[in-house]
Each structure stands twice: as structure tokens, then as C-alpha cells.
């Protein structure tokens, strides 16, 4: 067994209180019928190892629950591409998780919706790419709009709480009123308008996706009008577009604090993007228990607490509030994950975000490359030759 990724002594993070991973995200598969231009899966997902078996997933779910995980997300890729989803949902309920299916809706037949309900699945989140057939189908590079509508109505008919998720960006943000209407017509409980964050495929396509300030202001006003009109019938979340913020988001509520992702091949990450960070060996549930990984691995202790911070974070009164922002964003924009997230106006690299936002304000933003869809053949281009 390779112990290289584990701390044997209590170095570095010894003074940090390690809390339970309350949120466990099970990325069951990278297989997906959609090819979204802002997919959060790693660019080189095509190089992932063999998917965990049903028995391995069951073991992981048991270990997570024993550690105190309470929220369970079945995600991917498209989790419905796994034929053991009902079995895993049954296990999730038996263990006492609140389980969430995060789906494109593709493959969610009425029979499956019913079977998942019987298995004890608590909630279904369906994503749309847009309120119009044309743009929805373009952004995901599939003809799925009508199917998604049908699925969304069925989810409500089977009495699930439902979150409708739409990733918002330059290409669809002007449709926000139509998106709100769509959510209302389905009768969703929560609408999540997730302003695109720029990692992975979205980072690659960033020049196409960053909205203008005027677009954002108009969208926010539309959301506000809708909230006032509809009252408490639906809750609308407008996820802060962090490139347009002046302080960084408290990413994952801190590294290794409440959130754990298990990728399809069993690699364990503190967030679903962290695999991009160089020089960290992320452990695998095939080699170690989840508990050992969460508590003792170098990967999970690397940015726990604040001893790793540099200035301006190190001496910032907000360091306990925003944890210096996002390590992946710091790495993507500065080449060093220990730098302050450049979204922060105090960050020495803040200009990298300002430049990108300024480019979006131009009448014709400079485009580095045409839109890249999340496709296996594109992912293979990003797969590094294995050492």
C-alpha cells in the first residue's frame, strides 16, 4: 500500500479541529449524455480509473455515515447512467442519509422516479441549460429540452421536493424572466440560478460565458421583482457571480471542513475541482478508509485551518470568514494555490479577474478559442500521458 499520501505524525494541522464531513458527494460516473460547455468535471475525466463497484460504494456510504455525513448527493456525470442507483439510494436511506439526486433528467423514466421514491430518495434536482429549446439543446449539445420538461413535471407529480438548477452565464442570462416562468410553471420548491464559476470546462470557455455588468444588474432586478410577486411559494437562489464580487466566496466552507467528494474511481477530494491542483496526491477509498483519508491524509490537511496562508490573507481579519477564497481559483489564475483568491480586491493578482471582467464589457470580447464542448474526444486531449 502506498503510504506516500498520508501523514503518520500530527504535523501541520495538529492545532486544527477536524469536524465531520457533513456533506458527501458521490460522483458515481463521468458518463453523461450531455456535453455542457461549463461542466464541472475535470478536463481529463477520460483518464479516470475504473468506476467503483456497488459494494465499494456501499462501503463508502457506510463509512461516511459513521463519520457523521448527513447529506448525500448522487451526482456525476449523469448518475442515472449507473444501473445500481436504486440499490445505492436504498442503502442511503437505510443508513439515514438525506439523499439528493443531481440529474440532467435524461434517463429518469416514470418507473425510475417511482422506484427511487420507494427506495427512499429524498430529493431530485433537475438541471436545465436554458428556458428555450434552442439554447438548452445547444449548450448541452443534445436535444433534451422537451424531455427535461416532461421529467420535471413527473418529479413534482411523485411529490418530491424539487430544485431546478440553471447555470447562468452570458449566453442565457437575458432569458432570466423566462427561466423564472418555467420554474413557476413546473411548481419547483427552489430555483437555483447558479452564475457560472470558472473552473474546468467553464474556465476553458470563459470568454464566451462571463456576462456584462449590465446583464447581471438586469438579471438581479428581474429576480427581485419575481420574488416580490411570488412570495414564499418558491425560493430563488441567485448564486453570487464571484468574478464580479470584491471579496472571495468562502469556498466549501473551508478546505476539509464539511464537504467531501468521492469521484467515480474512488479518488477522494475536498471539492469536485481540486484534482487539478498539482503536487497533491489525492487518496483513494480503494487504498484507505474514508476516515483515515479525512483525518490523516496530506491532501485533506494541506489547506485546513490557516497556517498555509500568505499575506494579505495571513493578516486579514476576514480569514476566518472566507478562508482566503478558493484554492483552485488561486491556482488557475496565479499558478500557486497558496495565493489569495484573485477575486479578492486585496489580492496582488486581482488584475487577472479585472482583466477578464473588462474583456466581457467590450463590444466584441476577445475570444481565445471557439466554444469547447465536454466531449470524450476533447477530454482525451487533456489527458496527460501516465507516468
Amino acid at each position, binding site marked *: 500500500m502506498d503510504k506516500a499520501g498520508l501523514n503518520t505524525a500530527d504535523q501541520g494541522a495538529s492545532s486544527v479541529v477536524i469536524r465531520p464531513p457533513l456533506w458527501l458527494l458521490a460522483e458515481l460516473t463521468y458518463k453523461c449524455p450531455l456535453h455542457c460547455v461549463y461542466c464541472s468535471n475535470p478536463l481529463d475525466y477520460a483518464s479516470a480509473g475504473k468506476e467503483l463497484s456497488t459494494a465499494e460504494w456501499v462501503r463508502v456510504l457506510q463509512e461516511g455515515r459513521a463519520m*457523521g455525513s448527513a447529506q448525500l448527493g448522487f451526482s456525476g456525470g449523469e448518475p442515472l447512467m449507473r444501473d445500481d442507483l436504486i440499490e445505492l439510494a436504498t442503502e442511503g436511506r437505510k443508513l439515514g442519509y438525506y439523499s439528493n439526486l443531481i*440529474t440532467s433528467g435524461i434517463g429518469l423514466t416514470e418507473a425510475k422516479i417511482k422506484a427511487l421514491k420507494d427506495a427512499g430518495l*429524498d*430529493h431530485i434536482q433537475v438541471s436545465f441549460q436554458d428556458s428555450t429549446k434552442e439554447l438548452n439543446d445547444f449548450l448541452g449539445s443534445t436535444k433534451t429540452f422537451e424531455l427535461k420538461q416532461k421529467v420535471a413535471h413527473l418529479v413534482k407529480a411523485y411529490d418530491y421536493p424539487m430544485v431546478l438548477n440553471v447555470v447562468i452565464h452570458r449566453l442565457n442570462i437575458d432569458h432570466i424572466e423566462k427561466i423564472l416562468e418555467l420554474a413557476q410553471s413546473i411548481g419547483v420548491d427552489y430555483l437555483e440560478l447558479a452564475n457560472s464559476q470558472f473552473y474546468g470546462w467553464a474556465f476553458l470557455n470563459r470568454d464566451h460565458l462571463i456576462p456584462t455588468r449590465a446583464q447581471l444588474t438586469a438579471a438581479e432586478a428581474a429576480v427581485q421583482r419575481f420574488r416580490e410577486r411570488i412570495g*414564499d411559494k418558491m425560493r430563488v437562489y441567485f448564486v453570487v457571480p464571484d468574478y464580479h464580487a470584491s471579496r472571495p466566496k468562502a469556498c466549501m466552507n473551508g478546505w476539509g471542513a464539511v464537504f467531501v467528494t468521492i469521484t467515480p474511481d474512488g479518488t477522494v477530494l475536498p471539492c469536485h475541482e481540486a484534482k487539478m491542483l498539482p503536487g497533491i496526491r489525492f487518496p483513494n477509498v480503494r487504498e484507505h478508509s474514508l476516515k483515515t483519508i479525512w483525518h490523516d491524509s496530506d491532501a485533506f490537511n494541506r489547506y485546513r485551518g490557516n497556517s498555509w496562508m500568505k499575506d494579505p490573507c495571513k493578516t486579514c481579519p476576514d480569514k476566518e470568514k472566507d478562508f482566503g477564497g478558493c484554492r483552485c481559483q488561486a491556482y488557475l489564475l496565479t499558478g500557486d494555490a497558496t495565493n489569495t483568491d484573485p477575486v479578492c480586491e486585496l489580492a496582488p493578482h486581482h488584475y487577472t479577474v479585472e482583466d477578464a471582467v473588462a474583456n466581457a464589457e467590450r463590444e466584441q470580447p476577445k475570444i481565445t478559442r471557439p466554444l469547447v464542448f465536454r466531449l470524450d474526444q476533447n477530454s482525451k486531449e487533456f489527458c496527460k500521458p501516465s507516468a
Partner: protein
Amino acid sequence: MRWRPTWSFARGAMSDPTMKPASTTIPAIKKLFRLQWEEVQQKHVLLYPEGMVQLNQSAGEILKRCDGVRSVQEITTDLETAFNHKGLEPEVLSFLEIAHGQGWVEYR
């Protein structure tokens, strides 16, 4: 597929126009929520889509009894017996006002 969990723990529940409960009010936990005891955290939590409310002891004990059958008065009597403590109704009423405002409970 995409997942943005950073806000999940921070987001509050739905807000309701505040309605003052009374002794005869029959509170019930809304369908959107599941109340459960968490052994590791040693507390009751309310679970809902992609989120969790961590409850203190008295909140947990009150919500546990909000079954849509018992009235505030009956819940109070039960709590007073269980904890051997008189005069709990004001506390039950003020908590319910918050819980209703947060959208965790409805009145039957």
C-alpha cells in the same frame, strides 16, 4: 452536470409571513423537511434539499413533538412532564414563531 454546494449550509429556509401561534395551534413540520437525531453531532437536525439546520436541545425537543396532531398546549404538557419543568408554554410559543417564520412548520 454541475454542483454548487458552497451555499447549501448557509442558505436559510423559506420565510413565511409571521403568524402568532396560540395554545390551541396544532403545529406540524413541513413536508419539505426531515427531522432526525444525529448521533455524531449529538443533536437534532432538520434536513432539506441540499441543506441542514442544526438545532439546539430545546428546539429539537419541541420540533420532535410537532406531529400535526398535538396542540401547543399538549406539546407543552408533554415537555413539562419529560423535563420536570413547569411554565414552558411561553418558550414553546416563541420558538414556534421563529420556526414558522423560517418555514420549518405549518399550522393545522
